[in-house]
């Protein structure tokens, strides 16, 4: 295409300007503000003194900081480990020519439009220690009535299940879209060679949807890693800090404890992690396009 010159160049810039101005104000400038604040010791919103990387050192060496990282890792990995196999299985089933498959698809991916706030409230009520139906079912199985949110494994498990409930539709829809692009001739050719059922899944389907699964893993990892609302409303990070992830800590330091410097340091760490994962994501997409 020919280069744009003269007056048209100004038109192009005018078209771009509002978007540039907005993201500069609301995303780019604030990141620099966060980096700047993370280098100070603060009292409320006043910088007390410059401390260099002390906040980051504190973050990586304090018992709580390490626990936040471990919690984030547990949360991201467990959720992914549950979501991916479940979505692949359901996508394969929904791709079969079964009756009612549109109805099943609608019902199964419905939780995707439910907010994290509502997800947390729904599951909080399902596992309510006094009146929850899940509490009752567990009592029938285990023989004792338990408050899931009062123990670390119980709270983590409940939180992860709620998260899986809310987010697996995203992976499912992506995988289903990928499955629909696989020509049925491939399966027929496979059958001639004796590949059917599991064999055809592992030798034909899986290799073809692997790039999509990778995209889903990275998109969801980022979402889980940055997640605040679900955890804040569901467990608040408790009991003690058993479910407090890095992102939740960033939010609480800033908005619950007014510790602007430490909150900013957590934010910067989150930002760096996001950049790294996004770069991997872009490489994957490039690889797929070629």
């Amino acid at each position, binding site marked *: 295409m020919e280069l744009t010159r003269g007056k048209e160049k100004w038109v192009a810039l005018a078209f771009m300007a509002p978007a540039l101005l907005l993201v500069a104000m609301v995303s780019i400038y*604030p990141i620099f503000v966060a980096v700047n604040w993370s280098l100070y010791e603060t009292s409320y919103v006043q910088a007390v003194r410059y401390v260099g990387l002390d906040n980051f050192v504190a973050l990586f060496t304090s018992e709580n900081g390490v626990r936040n990282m471990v919690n984030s890792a547990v949360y991201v990995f467990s959720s992914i480990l549950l979501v991916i196999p479940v979505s692949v299985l359901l996508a394969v089933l929904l791709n079969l020519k079964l009756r009612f498959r549109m109805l099943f698809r609608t019902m199964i991916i419905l939780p995707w439009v439910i907010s994290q706030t509502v997800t947390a409230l729904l599951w909080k009520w399902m596992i309510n220690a006094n*009146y929850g139906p899940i509490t009752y079912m567990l009592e029938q199985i285990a023989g004792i009535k338990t408050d899931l949110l009062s123990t670390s494994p119980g709270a983590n498990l409940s939180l992860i299940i709620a998260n899986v409930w809310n987010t697996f539709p995203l992976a499912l829809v992506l995988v289903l879209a990928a499955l629909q692009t696989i020509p049925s001739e491939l399966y027929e050719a496979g059958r001639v060679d004796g590949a059917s059922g599991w064999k055809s899944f592992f030798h034909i389907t899986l290799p073809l949807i692997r790039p999509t699964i990778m995209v889903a893993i990275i998109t969801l990892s980022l979402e889980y890693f940055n997640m605040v609302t679900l955890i804040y409303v569901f467990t608040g990070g408790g009991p003690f800090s058993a479910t407090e992830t890095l992102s939740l800590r*960033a939010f609480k330091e800033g908005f619950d404890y007014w510790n602007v410097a430490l909150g900013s340091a957590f934010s910067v760490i989150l930002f760096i992690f996001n950049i790294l994962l996004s770069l991997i994501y872009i490489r994957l997409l490039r690889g797929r396009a070629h």
Partner: protein
Amino acid sequence: MQHLTARAKATAYTILILFSAFALVPILWAFGTSLKPENHILQYPPSWLPAEFTWNHYYNVLFRSNFPTYFLNSVMVTAISIVVSLFIASHAAYAASRFRFKGMNLLLFLILMTSMIPGIAVLIPLYLISVKVGIYDTFLVMILIYTAWRTPMLTWVLKGFFDAIPREIEEAAKVDGCSPWRAFYQLILPVSQPGLAASALLSAVYVWNDFLVAFSFTTKDDLRLLSVGLYNYITQYGINWGQLMAAVIISILPVVALFIGLQSKFVDGLSVGAVKG
């Protein structure tokens, strides 16, 4: 793949039914609760079907609380944010799709790059900035943030749609003396409506569902959005679960209705957004 044995079919249906139940039960349980009188809600073992029905919780939420205000606030903030971000993103996307000059790619990259910045990383600085500028605790600050956060994704998706529209349309118009502005408004935008609708839908659900911005940037009760109104129920001593679940059902009604009615648009928008955003 299509020659399933009866047993394979039965297994497939069983799994699909189990997961449909997994997906629907929390919502149905909430709906059941919202229709039960207080003494049936606070009952153990819990009963699935309400023995008596009551609309009291809905009445209280709709007529004796500020919930309708929150609902209207959410409608307004969502609508304005989406219209403004579509306006801004479609202009940027058009420029990126149709004009080539040194620096254009850099400008586009700058806009798209910001989608890598997670909201939580800029929330604290945005709070400090909004207080300084004097827009903390206003609808304006929420709309600005939502608009800015949706713009990169929308720009990328819309650029894809514009790229697919043949350039000949505008070239013919240019010969007739049509300016780039008019070509955009009168030729390109009208043809891109399906693309605009799919991406607008996803962004609308995003804004409607957000909690963090609404929670962190407002304190006045009459500025609250739905999600914050819901959250406030569980911060009170002695949670009123009947009313809370009625409020939950009211708040998810619009998105669930949109989803059921326009499911294919959601699915299209989701795949496009996730692969391209």
